[in-house]
């Protein structure tokens, strides 16, 4: 089994149901997109998969390859190979990007092994260059005082350094200017390969012109109500969500 496979996932927060019998499969080698109105549960899904402690999983399963993710600690899930690019990246004052990513890589090594500084910086600088991040950023504190777009680039930088098996990008395109959107998309595209599954959460069809999805899912009120190819995104852009809502109610 080479996929993230989510089955009948029900999740609550503060006694309110957010995800309702959600089913979704993201195979390795494919790019999937989730679109859906504000508050439909997209970020919740990404955080639950990443092991966020605030959400209460009522039932269901979420397997990544052979591993059940539900119930694992966030750091275990990360080291298993799931990366989440946050919708709202968090500041870590006083911790430089270089040290932060290095610690994250170090956490993946067996005890006693350590990272070769020269190789590490070589790789870091080359990734930064391709993402259009200035070298001076290595010594800046994680996300502190970063512009919206800089934060998003920094998420992709971490992703490309950690080389996860599965990536979830939660609205990475929001807040990016046109050039940044292209650069970041190229960064994501360069990571596409047969051994990696990618899920992008977005509100805009435009991103999907750069990162072309194999499948597009529509999320509504805590579940996937429709799945199609990239044309579904174009349709949504044109007609909004109302027609889907009507269908969902009928169904």
């Amino acid at each position, binding site marked *: 089994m080479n996929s993230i496979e989510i089955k009948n996932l029900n999740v609550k927060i503060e006694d309110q149901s957010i995800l309702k019998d959600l089913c979704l499969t993201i195979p390795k080698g494919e790019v999937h997109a989730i679109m859906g109105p504000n508050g439909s549960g997209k970020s919740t899904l990404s955080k639950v998969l*990443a*092991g*966020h*402690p*605030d959400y209460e999983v009522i039932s269901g399963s979420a397997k990544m390859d052979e591993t059940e993710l539900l119930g694992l*600690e*966030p*750091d275990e*899930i*990360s*080291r298993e190979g799931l*990366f*989440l690019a*946050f919708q709202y*990246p*968090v*500041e*870590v*004052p*006083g*911790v430089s990007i270089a040290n*932060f*990513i290095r*610690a*994250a890589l170090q*956490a*993946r090594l067996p005890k006693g092994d350590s990272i070769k500084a020269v190789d590490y910086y070589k790789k870091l600088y080359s990734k930064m260059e391709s993402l259009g991040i200035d070298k001076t950023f290595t010594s800046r*504190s994680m996300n502190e005082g970063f512009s919206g777009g800089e934060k998003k680039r920094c998420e992709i930088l*971490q992703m490309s350094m*950690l080389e996860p098996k599965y990536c979830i990008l939660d609205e990475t395109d929001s807040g990016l200017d046109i050039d940044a959107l292209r650069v970041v998309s190229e960064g994501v595209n360069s990571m596409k390969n047969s051994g990696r599954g990618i899920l992008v959460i977005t509100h805009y069809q435009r991103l999907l012109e750069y990162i072309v999805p194999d499948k597009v899912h529509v999320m509504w009120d805590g579940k996937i109500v429709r799945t199609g190819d990239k044309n579904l995104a174009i349709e949504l852009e044109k007609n909004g969500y109302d027609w889907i809502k009507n269908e969902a109610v009928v169904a």
Partner: protein
Amino acid sequence: MIKPSNIEIDREKGNFHYPTSSYAFDAGIGLSAEVIKYISEVKNEENWVLDHRLKALSIFEKKPMPTHWASKDLENIDFDVIRYYLAQGQQPSRTWDEVPDDIKETFERLGIPEQERKFLAGVEAQFDSEAAYSRMKEDLEKEGVIFVGPTEGLKDHPEIFRKWFGKVIPSSDNKFSALNSAVFSGGSFIYVPPGVKLAQPLQAYFRINAENFGQFERTLIIADEGSEITYMEGCTAPKFETSTLHSAVVELVALKGSKIQYITVQNWSNNVYNLVTKRAIAEENAEVRWIDCNIGSKLTMKYPGVVLKGRKSRGEVLSIALANDGQHQDTGAKMIHSASETSSNVIAKSISIGNGRSSYRGLVQIPGHLKNCKNNTECDALLINSESQTDTYPAIAVKGDDNSVQHEASVSKVSAEQIFYMQQRGLSEAEAMSMYVNGFVNDLIREFPMEYSVELKRLIDLEMEGSVG
């Protein structure tokens, strides 16, 4: 969620204890004039030193406990059960080979001989009341640098040390400076001749080994005109059932144009009362910098100060305090400006974990008749869970239009979202916490000599490992 700590902190590095063969010199239990006479006799001191001690004892007996402004916890110190002087009768050895095996083993485990080889100009290693080892590079000796204990200092070099001994911090300064002045033993007396600049630090390491013991070292550093010195001290003690008292007095004298940097990284076990008085006098154009890292202990009360006595002198305190469960770090700084064009800088960072408590107590004095004095004070507190407590008592008394002070204080918390973010990148909760704490103190640590910042980072990691569960 960040859980309050319920595990006892394993301060591995210092927490071990080799049984020590009997002490040849033991002043017994409790404090009296007899005990003091015994100590003085063992040390073969001159009469004036004994008189000084006895006078200090009567001051100590008269002074009340300073519980009214600090912690009631001080009342739990029972002066009658403490042993005030314990020594094996050793003269400080000049080579590690001559140090008795059990003591040598202790310091080897603490990494002292290794540090000495790597980056130090001289080391003194104190075991309970007396130094077991003391050595300084020969070229420094030739240049006239003196690095000895107080007994030797007062006996062999009275012309240098007697003038300043007890002058920066008189016995009557506070109850614990009086206690130290009565029973002091061990510590460093250092003199750096004019113009001599030490390229490498001198280090003292203070080790408490015996239970129910009080360690009262006394340090006096005199930097003569235009000289420079960095002095570092480290401290540990094993975890005993009963509490232990560490009460030092440290006096620094920075003469015209000299520089003294005094670095402390203490890592006391959880039942040490650490009540230390530290003060410096800075003459014209001199610079004194205290770097003070307080990790561990049950209660620490320590407020390094600088009396800015000469024009254009500068004083600085950079301090980091980490109060884990059950600990109280009551630390701060005192800047007494008594000449024009003097400047002082205080940056204090505290971290409180579990029900640990950190307080900052500052004092900045600039009288109105002085001109162009400056102080900058910055206190940042980090709380690691809601039980933690932090208080700030800045006490700034600044007069005169030509003087300026700046005071900033902040309190921050580690949020669950920050920990989740770091964990999402693969760091365990404990690793995430130590990374956060290291980030919090990072701009200060950058000011430290490399070897000490590495050591401090390691201590923080250890502390965080034990406190997250």
